[in-house]
């Protein structure tokens, strides 16, 4: 279910109309106007990037890095091929927003990428789509065909000298390929595992060429910013947290789905939009930004607004905007066991702390859940976690540790109960 409240990505999209994704419908709701504005009014690359900086758009993939700043890193006068890559390898448990963008409004992404290509002087782009959502890949390819036929994409766009080729590429479902350098490796046809940095993709990216990588939602926000101005976008949200954002709400709510709302909206309002708690149960905890984000207990969450800074201040992260809502029936040990299993299974195995450590974390949580925990296990978990965090090539190591740290910070008693009584504190549901 997708609910448009207020925002830039799904503005004007009719989710009940099977043709709403198509080019005609997109143009009718103001699509490709931004591209036309650039090409027909002679907007310069510097002006576009300035507009992006004004908008305070932050990367929607999870890291929240300012997009305008990232674009300004691209060496614009580099002699040779440069690449623009869209990361639609949406694999973070709880996240399902990019899939919806591609299915319901693919041209917003395409237009955003074309504008990005223009702004950074890039002529070739790829969209790397998660391997397990094949229909999204097919929808994207169909939209590309439309855009090419209409002259928005390809050689001499809208009769100008500007050329931009865009290709879809579907991966094979590895979570790690959402890490941007692993994505590049996979796109090159190699085993998807992260590269060490530096060098960063801006200087050594796809095929060793300067490359800019952004998330699907980030690109899909670009047309609005160019069309309406960065300031207007910024004002949709709050300072340093410009614009609106898609939140994927899952878990124990009455209406799980994607909600596009302004950044800075209180969590309580978002919960209400999602129909409140299912079965009238009590909210226990929320993972506010995808499975890698530390869990926050209900009381903290209810005082929080949904934006990068507020969630960070509360001790977690907004991440990709995947809000996993848990009610009082949830056993936190079992929840962590499942999360830890995910990271154990998805570690690429390249570097030592993550390859060996994620399995260790999972096995210890597993034995606590199965009544074989020992009193020293909780300190062991934190100690092993500390040996992983910050020692790995990419952020997957950190991502595997943060749920453990979050759970033990807020729900340590539940774990201790499991160890002491060899059964669950949460019973009777």
């Amino acid at each position: 279910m997708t609910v448009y409240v207020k925002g830039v990505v799904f503005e004007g999209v009719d989710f009940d109309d099977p043709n709403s994704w198509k080019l005609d419908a997109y143009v009718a709701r103001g699509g490709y106007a931004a591209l036309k504005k650039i090409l027909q009014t002679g907007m310069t690359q510097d002006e576009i990037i300035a507009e992006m900086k004004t908008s305070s758009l932050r990367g929607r993939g999870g890291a929240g890095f300012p997009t305008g700043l990232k674009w300004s890193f691209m060496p614009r006068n580099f002699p040779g091929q440069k690449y623009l890559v869209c990361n639609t390898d949406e694999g973070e448990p709880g996240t399902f927003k990019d899939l919806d963008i591609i299915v319901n409004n693919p041209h917003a992404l395409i237009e955003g990428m074309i504008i990005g290509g223009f702004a950074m002087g890039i002529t070739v782009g790829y969209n790397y789509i998660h391997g397990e959502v094949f229909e999204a890949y097919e929808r994207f390819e169909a939209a590309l065909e439309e855009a090419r036929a209409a002259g928005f994409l390809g050689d001499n766009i809208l009769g100008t000298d500007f050329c931009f080729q865009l290709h879809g590429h579907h991966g094979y479902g590895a979570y790690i390929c959402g890490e941007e350098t692993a994505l590049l490796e996979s796109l090159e046809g190699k085993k998807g595992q992260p590269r060490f940095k530096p060098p960063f993709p801006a200087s050594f990216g796809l095929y060793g060429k300067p490359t800019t990588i952004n998330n699907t939602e980030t690109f899909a926000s670009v047309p609005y910013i160019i069309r309406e101005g960065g300031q207007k976008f910024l004002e949709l949200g709050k300072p340093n947290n410009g614009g609106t954002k898609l939140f994927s709400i899952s878990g124990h709510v009455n209406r799980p789905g994607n909600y596009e709302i302004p950044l800075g909206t209180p969590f309580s309002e978002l919960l209400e939009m999602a129909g409140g708690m299912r079965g009238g149960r009590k909210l226990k905890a929320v993972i506010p930004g995808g499975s890698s984000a530390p869990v926050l207990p209900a009381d903290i969450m209810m005082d929080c607004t949904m934006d990068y800074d507020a969630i960070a201040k509360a001790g977690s992260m907004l991440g990709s905007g995947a809000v996993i809502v848990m009610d009082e029936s949830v056993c936190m040990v079992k929840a962590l066991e499942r999360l830890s299993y995910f990271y154990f299974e998805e570690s690429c195995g390249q570097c030592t702390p993550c390859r060996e450590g994620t399995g260790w974390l999972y096995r210890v949580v597993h034995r606590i859940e199965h009544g074989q925990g020992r009193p020293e296990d909780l300190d062991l978990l934190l100690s092993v976690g500390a040996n992983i965090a910050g020692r790995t090539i990419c952020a997957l190591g950190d991502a595997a540790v943060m749920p453990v740290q979050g759970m033990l910070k807020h729900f340590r008693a539940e774990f201790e109960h499991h160890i002491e009584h060899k059964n669950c504190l949460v019973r009777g549901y």
Partner: protein
Amino acid sequence: MLEIEIDGKKLTVPGGSTVMDAANSVGVHIPHFCYHKKLSIAANCRMCLVQVEKAPKPLPACATPVTDGMKVYTHSDMAVKAQKGVMEFLLINHPLDCPICDQGGECQLQDLAVGYGQSSSRYEEEKRVVPNKNLGPLISTDMTRCIHCSRCVRFTEEIAGYQELGMPGRGEHTEVMSFIGKTVNSEISGNVIDLCPVGALTSKPFRYSARTWELSRRKSVSPHDGLGANLVVQVKDHRVKRVLPLENEAINECWLADRDRFSYEALNSEERLTKPLIKQGGVWQEADWQSALEYVANGLKDIVDAHGAGSIAGVATEHATVEELYLLKQLFAGLGSHNVETRLRAADHGLKTAGATWLGQSIVDVATAEAVLVIGSTLRKEQPLLAQRLRQGVKKGLKLSVVNPHADDLLTALAGQVVVRPDQLVEGVLAVVKAVVDAKGVAAPAQIDLSGVEADDAARAIAASFADKEKTAIVLGNVAQQNPRYAELYAAAAALAELTGAKLGVLGAAANSVGAQLVGATGAGNVFAEPKKAYVLLNTEVEFDVGDSLQALRAVQGAAMVVALSSFGSCALEHADVILPVSPFSETSGTFVNMEGKAQSFNGVVRPLGETRPAWKVFRVLGNLLGLENFNFNSSEEVRDIALAGDLAAKLSNALAAPVAVKAQAASGVVRLGEVPIYQADLLTRRAPSLQATVDGAAPQLKANAATLARLGLSIGGQALVKQGQGDAQLAVELDNGLADDVVRVPANHPLTRALGAFVGPVDVTQA
């Protein structure tokens, strides 16, 4: 230059250095596993994490570039905590079976665990078990011990040129493996054993035969190809147990070819002869040295007296030492004969140069040239480590091209490739000469007749790769040196070198190819064409060491006396009348002069087996018995100092002594391309069972392109009968579309093909 500080030591390092480079330059050791100076940076083991001022997290020293003013702490609390954390992770799934692990005692994980590990483990779950892999007869696997450093994977891809090992699987399930059903077949594969920091990849032939601390380490020099790779020979109880590289950046870097590493198996072969033998009435009788030597001396004297000095010949290979060859030559000179020859696989002895032919430059110079043309060489099999060096050169911009009678993959990018019939190599080079002449608009060089020569695209591509380059080289390989038109080929290459300003070089086929020329143990030409009454064979097996093996075999079989100074039986037992057991390179002191003209002396690493004697001592005593002058040497060093007296460099020259006229000729009909298989090249490799068990040691096949196979009525996988002169051979048929039409590739000097004649010549091929 950047100024930095490591553990309080101030130093300046060039820009682009990593923290690891900087630390190495001042002798600060940072623990590591995946880092290796010859491989790309992987930064995956995380053992080299160090603290860098202002960085919130520890950084991997191997992958962190130095910045000006950087302060690095390799032993601070933050660094050591990170390093110990990584060590704990490495050990949780490591079997800790050191007492039964072949790597025990020379294991980097074991060594570093002493400094960074704990005495007991906090990990109490079951450990990972990983199935072993079959990587072939050279590399043994215990994959449960693997720590996933990926050095072996990077080696096969980056150094050996073809990624024969990979890392499929994810997370804990990541495993190093070869392609499904395939072994690791590189000719330099054994280096992964050295690279593996743990006991996951160990030497299969050496497995469980000794512990590292029981072995004495002795320096030596490889007796195989012309590179002269430096060795550490490891010895226990007077037996060679293992061979490892001795690092020498100018020659073999830190690598060895598989034959350098594994041919030692032959040294302990049961075929080793340990007592002098004399054949009496067709039966071999053991003899003492005195009787055997007197028998030889008297026999040679009698034959010379009866038939003249021209009736005897001394035959050795270029794998013999300077000292041995010098004394062989002196012995024959004392008997009045100049019939000593070592270029046994040559079909054309007509080339005369001003000095000993050599590489014309250093090995490093060739690898760092801007353009190199290799003429007539199956380079990967002839000179495995030089091929590797050129591969690295190509990555840095070297333009490599070939003129060859085949299109064997050098596993690197080629700037140009001319493929011709083996009897048309001269014409192949002339095409390149023509392309250069055309491009430069100059006249054809003197003596080079370019009438009828056309330059095709491939020849022009090679010519273009030399244009506007300063440092270039043209080198001739074994296939060229064995060609029946070698003198012409050489002259054409020399003309091309002069036109392009390239340095001309000859890739010494064997460890002492240059040394053999320096001491004058060559020049007699084909000593088998006109059979002699007596032959003295020094570690020479005529059916495997001579180009026209059939002719040589007939000559030896018809001789009145054959003296074999040999380390091994079999061939010697078959053909000789008297056998003097002599030491292989491991049991004698000696000297090899490598392709770049560098004389490398070595000592014996073990004492001679049984009653075996170093050949130089045998010649010395024979000289005394024959009453020859100047044979009173007390050491091999004395022999060497006389044999190589004077300025060595002045005796090396690739300049033609007399002009050679070169003219293109037509060729037609089915022609043989004969080459020596890599592990048939010398008598040690022929007796190394592990090398023989590799893919390169497999039975030779007849290969031809699809059109030729069809014309000859042969089918892939079927059998072919090859007739050459009076001999024949039956071989399995295989496709090789890299060959020119009407070329059949039939390996030489192999038991299956020993009855055949010249490497290059007309053959009849029919379905068997």
